[in-house]
């Protein structure tokens, strides 16, 4: 269904993927960080797409490039980082080629993002009401009191009790879960078509995690927006997402429908993840079963970045980067040998 064409002309930013269903189409995204220790090849050749109204999950160990991928989608990579190449088509336009003025109109209005730590994501010197209203007045020409009224409505929408009074409180006066609700209402204030949630529950208590995800799910149903949910928790993926991309060392190694991935993981890394997880609610970071260490992204392994830890690795694996290839419709794998490896199953 999706054919990732790498031959698209650089200038032709209007060209989107053939499928009208697709909201975001990331192609060959590459982002490096030029640090004093060397070039961190945080994201390299990452391609995936998100359909309209889809709940897409991006999973991987911490440090594998999930956040950088998300920020790149908004062209928000900052010094010392640089987007080296690739395209991010959003509603047919390449976000990475837009002028600063134009992309600012997209940020917050059409694509919103919420972060891991809701306290530090809110400016301590402004009330939460002011910060929600800020988004509205940045993108719409409304009066201050109207913006505030809408802020209160949004706060009620995400289940903040006594929103009328709490609108004038400061972020530090809220609990962690309430802060994340504030962040969500802030992200939703202009009815975005894509919500990027970067580990929205990692900093929260387990009980509150479920509530927050429920709110996001509910809002997604209500407004029909797409969600890019970044997490390192496979349980969260299983419960919420329709499709998932697995990242390893700055590469996407496999994308598929969630059900497919659990039933038929094809990449050795995904398989290792699945095999090592007796229970789905465990986070990847707690896994100790995989031999070897997380790749150093300054000096990453050549070829397949997983090859030092892969038991099926051949000399080809160490030389040639395996491209992300369609296996079945809506199932892509980046491994030279996955057909042989999975031959017994198939």
């Amino acid at each position: 269904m999706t054919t990732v064409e790498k031959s698209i002309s650089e200038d032709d930013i209007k060209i989107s993927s053939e499928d009208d269903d697709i909201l975001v189409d990331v192609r060959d995204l590459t982002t490096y960080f030029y640090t004093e220790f060397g070039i961190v090849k945080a994201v390299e050749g990452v391609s995936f797409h998100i359909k309209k109204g889809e709940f897409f999950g991006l999973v991987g160990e911490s440090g594998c490039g999930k956040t950088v991928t998300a920020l790149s989608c908004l062209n928000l990579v900052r010094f010392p980082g640089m987007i080296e190449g690739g395209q991010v088509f959003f509603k047919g336009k390449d976000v990475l080629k837009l002028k600063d003025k134009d992309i600012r109109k997209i940020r917050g209005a059409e694509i919103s993002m919420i972060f891991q730590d809701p306290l530090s994501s809110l400016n301590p010197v402004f009330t939460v009401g002011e910060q929600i209203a800020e988004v509205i007045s940045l993108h719409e020409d409304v009066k201050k009191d109207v913006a505030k009224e809408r802020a209160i409505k949004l706060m009620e929408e995400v289940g903040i009790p006594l929103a009328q009074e709490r609108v004038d409180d400061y972020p530090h006066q809220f609990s962690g879960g309430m802060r994340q609700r504030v962040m969500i209402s802030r992200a939703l204030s202009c009815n975005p078509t894509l919500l990027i949630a970067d580990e929205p529950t990692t900093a929260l208590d387990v009980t509150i995690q479920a509530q927050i995800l429920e709110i996001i799910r509910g809002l997604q149903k209500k407004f029909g927006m797409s969600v890019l949910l970044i997490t390192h928790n496979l349980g969260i993926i299983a419960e919420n997402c329709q499709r998932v991309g697995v990242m390893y060392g700055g590469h996407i190694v496999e994308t598929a429908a969630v059900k497919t991935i659990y039933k038929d993981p094809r990449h050795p890394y995904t398989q290792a993840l699945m095999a090592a997880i007796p229970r789905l609610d465990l986070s990847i970071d707690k896994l100790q079963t995989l031999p070897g260490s997380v790749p150093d992204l300054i000096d990453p392994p050549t070829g397949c970045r997983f090859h030092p830890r892969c038991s099926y690795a051949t000399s080809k694996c160490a030389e040639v980067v395996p491209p992300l290839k369609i296996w079945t419709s809506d199932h892509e794998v980046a491994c030279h040998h996955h057909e042989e490896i999975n031959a017994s199953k198939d």
Partner: protein
Amino acid sequence: MLRKKYKKAEELSGSQLAIAFRRFRKNKAGLLGLILSTGVILMALLADVLAPYDPATYFLIHYPGYVPSYQPPGVKEGAQLFDYTNYVFNPSFEFPLSEWSNDWQIINLNTSGIPSGIEHGSHAARGSSQGGELTQDITAYKDLFFIELSFEAYVVGEPATLSVIFTNEDGKEDQIDLTLSENRWNSVVLALQDDYGLSVRKEKQESIKMSLRVNTGSDVIVDNFNLKAGEYFKNVHYMGTNYKSEDLFSRLVHGARVSLLVSFGAIFISLFIGLPLGLVAGYYRGKVDEIVMRITDVFLTLPFYFVMILVIVVIQNTRWVDNLLIEMGLSTQVILIAVMIGLGIFGWMGITRLVRATIFQIRESDYVEAARCIGASNRRIMIVHIFPNVLAPLIVVVTLGLSANILVEAGLAFLGFTTEDLSSWGRELSNGFDYATVAWWSVFFPAILIIIAVMSFNLLGDGLRDAFDPRLR
């Protein structure tokens, strides 16, 4: 338990500023610093009201044979003699009796046929019964206490009556008639006090006119004239006087003005340089930051005192600066202004570093990332999201900078870099230094004031820092 919860909620309500204020209120040392520094600032502002005396009044200078000297703290009461003789026989005139009255002529004693035998000066004055009066104004600044008058008079020919008349501003007179023997020198000494012959005295400032009138007989020659008036005084020197008999308290109160003016002025100059540099470095980073930081490093490695003294001397001797100051009517304050500028251009590095570091820290923070995500422009992020968060540390560093400036200003004044016509703490200290063993107060009070001022701004700065962000400690 509930109470504790309530207290916690109370503690956390309101803006960051409100929380900081509440936290500050609990900080005893910070409060002390606030009170003391407010006191120091008020002292500078209200110097004219607070200081009992003009800082440049030399007390007791008119005592006969008086040498100005330090006086211990306390109340000084007594008669202060004011010698009008010098004013009468003004040394700048060859024989200034001529100034008194046309009717009294200046004569040369050696040629006037007066028998020698009594040594006199070469000149005297001659008056006659036909003529008017020899007069002199005695102006008392306080309570005129007594008048001492002495002269010698030679009567040529017949015996004569000479009247000494004191007239006050209301026209009231005291007249003392003197009968003088002929053809010889008569020595006259009058000591008049209150009811003893001097009824014209008043308790407020007044001018009394003294006149000599020859009533009968021949000419009278007057010589060796001495006129002294005693003023009653009661001075309170809370901190004693300095070596010039100037009231130390008044001088230190006025000195606060100088110290604070220089320190505040300098910090504004520092802010003017340091804040934009810090903002620019923090905002643009990369090359710009590199350049700004190198400049900062260079300034930090300079031997502060020596280079500053050099700068002060250069400013002091720059013609156009001089001309500018003359135009502004500040020409006498050139050293102070040079010190202020010197302090300013060597005090901005801390501000720049702090602003830059704070911006670096804040721009990496998630809420700036979040502000970018909602489509805020760089400018908006800088002004709305970053700058307010720079303010708190900025206030702290400015307060601490003030205390440093006070100290350095005092140090420079101690070294002599201060104006002559204004008192300053450092100068009083260095003046008192020479007399420390005999006049403890002349060192103690300036020193204690400098310590209090520096300490209070330090405590205030520390308190504010703890209140704004306990983590900054």
